[in-house]
């Protein structure tokens, strides 16, 4: 045994000595696999792709990572769990990528987390927000950068406390993301706002809301606050009906993600003013580092950034930092370097918690306001994610590893 390893060391030394000058120029790139729903959820995923492409270009222009170029191989994931895991397998076995990131839908994210665990390859969830990815279905190989449902709802519930509303109605799309957000809200509002009760719940099928009946059913329960998880076309329909029928008057409305440009822009001038939302007020960011990212993005793509753009950019720069610290993109080293790591990102310091692999990235919380022909956010603050995360005890109780 000793002989063999001696010989290996010798060979390695020889290779380094002889090969170093040429290897410098011809080092193979570090390959990273990316997969997302570019066909079905183009409105969200295309700006996100722009974001990671920007990061990739910047990194490679500065000489790459560890002297090697960063090569991101991107694939369409077909938006279903079956297609996604097949495509992921292709990236791993055919392209030989070192790690994976991406995905949009929550259920696809859960399937990817399981895939990562089975194949022992790192997966960084991009958009899936369900707590399951880092909690019940979480595992050693799965990480998430964005604040999960529990954190974002927690930020909104804090606002609910301030509003004084006690009778709450919930409207959420009937699938994993909506259901889990509604559940978290029910739990947190009862824990944190004494005397609060849920008086109505509506769960329209995703993309198939019957807005009129839904609005009047909520109205009938006479709530003084509404918690909304709808997004996309369902939200537009709900807002139009609600505005016409006066549902939102004199009520506190909390709404998840509605302040993000990807969901706000399609609403045009029908933005429901005064809603308390989580979102991304990119137009009012003054911090130099963040501003530089926004300017670079606008210059390169001739478009305004969405939250997805920021996310794509952040995920890739954090991957770069981790690989640099780990000294390689090898799975175990990467996981070790990622756990409890502190990152200096464009939005400020972010920590990747070791116990549940959830980053402390926060969200911008503020009120919706109409600015000219489109909506934006006002009175916003950036809330760091750390105080809103699941408690360590809870993580330990739920996670199986």
């Amino acid at each position, binding site marked *: 045994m000793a002989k063999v390893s001696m010989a290996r060391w010798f060979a390695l030394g020889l290779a380094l000595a002889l090969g170093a000058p040429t290897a410098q120029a011809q080092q193979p790139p570090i390959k990273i696999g990316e997969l997302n729903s570019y066909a079905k959820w183009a409105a969200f995923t295309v700006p996100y792709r722009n974001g990671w492409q920007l990061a990739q270009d910047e990194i490679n222009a500065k000489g790459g990572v560890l002297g090697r170029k960063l090569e991101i191989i991107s694939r369409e994931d077909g938006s279903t769990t079956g297609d996604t895991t097949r*495509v992921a397998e292709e990236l791993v076995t055919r392209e030989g990528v070192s790690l994976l990131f991406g995905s949009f839908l929550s259920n696809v994210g859960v399937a990817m987390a399981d895939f990562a665990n089975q194949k022992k390859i790192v997966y960084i969830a991009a958009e899936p927000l369900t707590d399951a990815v880092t909690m019940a279905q979480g595992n050693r190989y799965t990480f998430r950068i964005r604040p999960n449902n529990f954190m974002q709802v927690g930020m909104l519930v804090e606002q609910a406390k301030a509003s004084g509303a006690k009778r709450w109605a919930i409207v959420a799309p009937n699938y*994993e993301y909506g259901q889990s957000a509604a559940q978290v809200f029910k739990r947190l509002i009862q824990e944190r706002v004494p005397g609060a009760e849920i008086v109505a719940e509506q769960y329209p099928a995703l993309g198939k809301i019957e807005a009129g009946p839904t609005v009047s059913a909520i109205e009938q329960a006479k709530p003084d606050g509404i918690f909304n998880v709808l997004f996309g*076309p369902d939200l537009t*329909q709900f807002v139009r009906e609600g505005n016409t029928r006066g549902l939102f008057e004199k009520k506190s409305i909390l709404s998840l993600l509605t302040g993000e440009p990807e969901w706000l822009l399609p609403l045009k001038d029908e933005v429901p003013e005064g809603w308390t939302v989580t979102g991304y007020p990119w137009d009012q960011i003054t911090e130099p580092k963040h501003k530089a990212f926004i300017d670079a993005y606008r210059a390169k793509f001739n478009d305004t950034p969405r939250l997805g753009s920021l996310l794509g950019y952040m995920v890739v720069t954090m991957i770069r930092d981790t690989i640099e610290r780990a000294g390689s993109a090898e799975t175990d080293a990467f996981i070790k370097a990622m756990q409890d790591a502190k990152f200096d990102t464009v939005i400020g310091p972010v920590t990747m918690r070791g116990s549940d692999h959830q980053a402390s990235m926060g969200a911008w919380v503020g009120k919706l306001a109409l600015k000219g022909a489109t909506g934006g956010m006002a009175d916003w603050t950036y809330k760091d994610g750390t105080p809103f995360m699941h408690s360590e005890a809870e993580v330990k109780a739920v996670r199986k590893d």
Partner: protein
Amino acid sequence: MDLSFLIIQSLSGLASASSLFITACGLTLVFGVTRIVNFAHGSLYMIGAYTAATLLPRLLELSYGPVSFWTGILITALIVGAIGVLIEVLLLRRIYGAPELFQLLATFGVVLVVQDLVVQVFGPQDILGPRAPGLRAPVEILGRRFPSYELALIAAGPIVLGFVWLLLRKTRFGILVRAATQDRDMVASLGVNQALLFTGTLFLGAFLAGLGGALQTPRVSANTGMDLSIIAECFVVTVVGGMGSVPGAFLAALIIGQLQAFGILIFPKSTLVVVFLLMAFVLAVRPYGFFGRPEIVGGTHAVGIVSRTPRASGTVAALIVLALLACLPLVSDAYLLKVATEILIFALFAFSLQLLIGVGGLVSFGHAAFFGLGAYGAALGVKWLDAPMEAALPLGILFAAAGAALIGAFVVRLSGIYLAMMTLAAAQILYAVAFQWVDVTGGDNGIVGVWPSTWASPRNAYYILTLILCATAVFILKRAIDAPFGYALRAARDSEPRAEAIGLNVRRHRWLAFMLSGAAAGLAGGIYAFSRGSVDPSLLGISTSVDALAMLLLGGIQTIAGPLVGAGVLHTLRDQIMPLTGLWRLFLGVSIIAMVLLFPRGLVGTIRHWREERA
């Protein structure tokens, strides 16, 4: 619950019913005349919404007022009507001679193409259209505000119904449409220009779809999910009302609108399933919907496998293919093996459908029910009983067979398109159960951690296992097709009265066929679950059913090897095209359309036809 609330709620229901009726009415007319199950109807509706959302703001800029708004709606409907004509002339007209259902595959190709084209033409972002001028403000009804545009919509439904009624009753075109709905062959024999009639009908159908889409503009932003979200409901409306019956569609839409408006008060999560429960209930009571009539005796679905003397060369070829497949692990990498495993699974899935459609003449649009039951049966076994793979797979088969026995018992009373829709309803109800029953099924996250036993977990071991199981199942099904049982099924397919006259119990044979086919599909589902380690409700979804149907039709409905080849071709295509481009749906759709045009009897069927013609 006070009266004013109930009235408002039912008015909302009426508004939804109106817009649903306008769209569905086009579908039912097209089906009545051409017998085409037009999957692309939802796509036309979506094009209507996008066109209106883009066109209306420009018109309103020119001159703001109700006139330009409603003109814009009309122009949009005309544009979409023209697109319908284009689809008919360029595509459907060329394949009227093909077996029934084959047009369905073509329209499925159109759906895929339109999904990507819409993003290319109109951009990825949802487009919010303008509100209707003059109808922006709400009206006060019993102290509650109600959008005035919804009132306009409520009126639009009966107006369209009136126009269509006049058109059908008072014009020559209408008379021909009604005649063709009753007996297409007779109309043709009387020397009516069918091409023109069909083009006209497609125009009318597409016009109505476009109108339905355009009328949604003030309520909904145009988005890329509209096509699929409307099409299932449209099918329900046409079937519940009776295929081809316009007043039936109106009544059905009214009922569905009210059910949804009040259903959400009692079961807030019911929207997924309520329409399909209604369909299942109506078909169980009235097998032809409200106003539908039985299909003509000797029905038109009698296309399928025919008798031919078995040739020794066929057996030899099958053995050679099997041997080659068994050698695949020697030369291929892990990923190719995964794709090959999936192809084998889908081949069995499509083949099990062939027993129903090709042999029994029982068109199932909900075959995913059995595939999904098999997968869930296996996964539930693993999750709740800690069963190893060896026990979970048979459990899945049992699940699927039991489900098929239950569903089959309801379904065999029906025929033709009604039967197809009943299976679809059953699959959708199961889908909703898997989706809602979170505690047991894990909701739409599904169940993860369904991995095979250690000995079978290496890729090549699992591939060989899949090959053995699928080949055995296909062999057994093939024996059943060649046995008296298969002949009895075919007799019933070709002529039900004659089959009954010689003493065959048609319903029992069909029921058994459902169970056999369901068990085979369940086996495929179980193997699939273990191959990817998880199950989720999409396995029970419409797209899975359409997959099986597309594979079968692509390969050839009249041949034994057809579904096997079709599964191979379609899955390979998808696997090859998807990584290449973001426009994969466009390319896949175009490939399907190209194959439909080049191989109007399916791949295997057409090649055999060429060979026979030469001989």
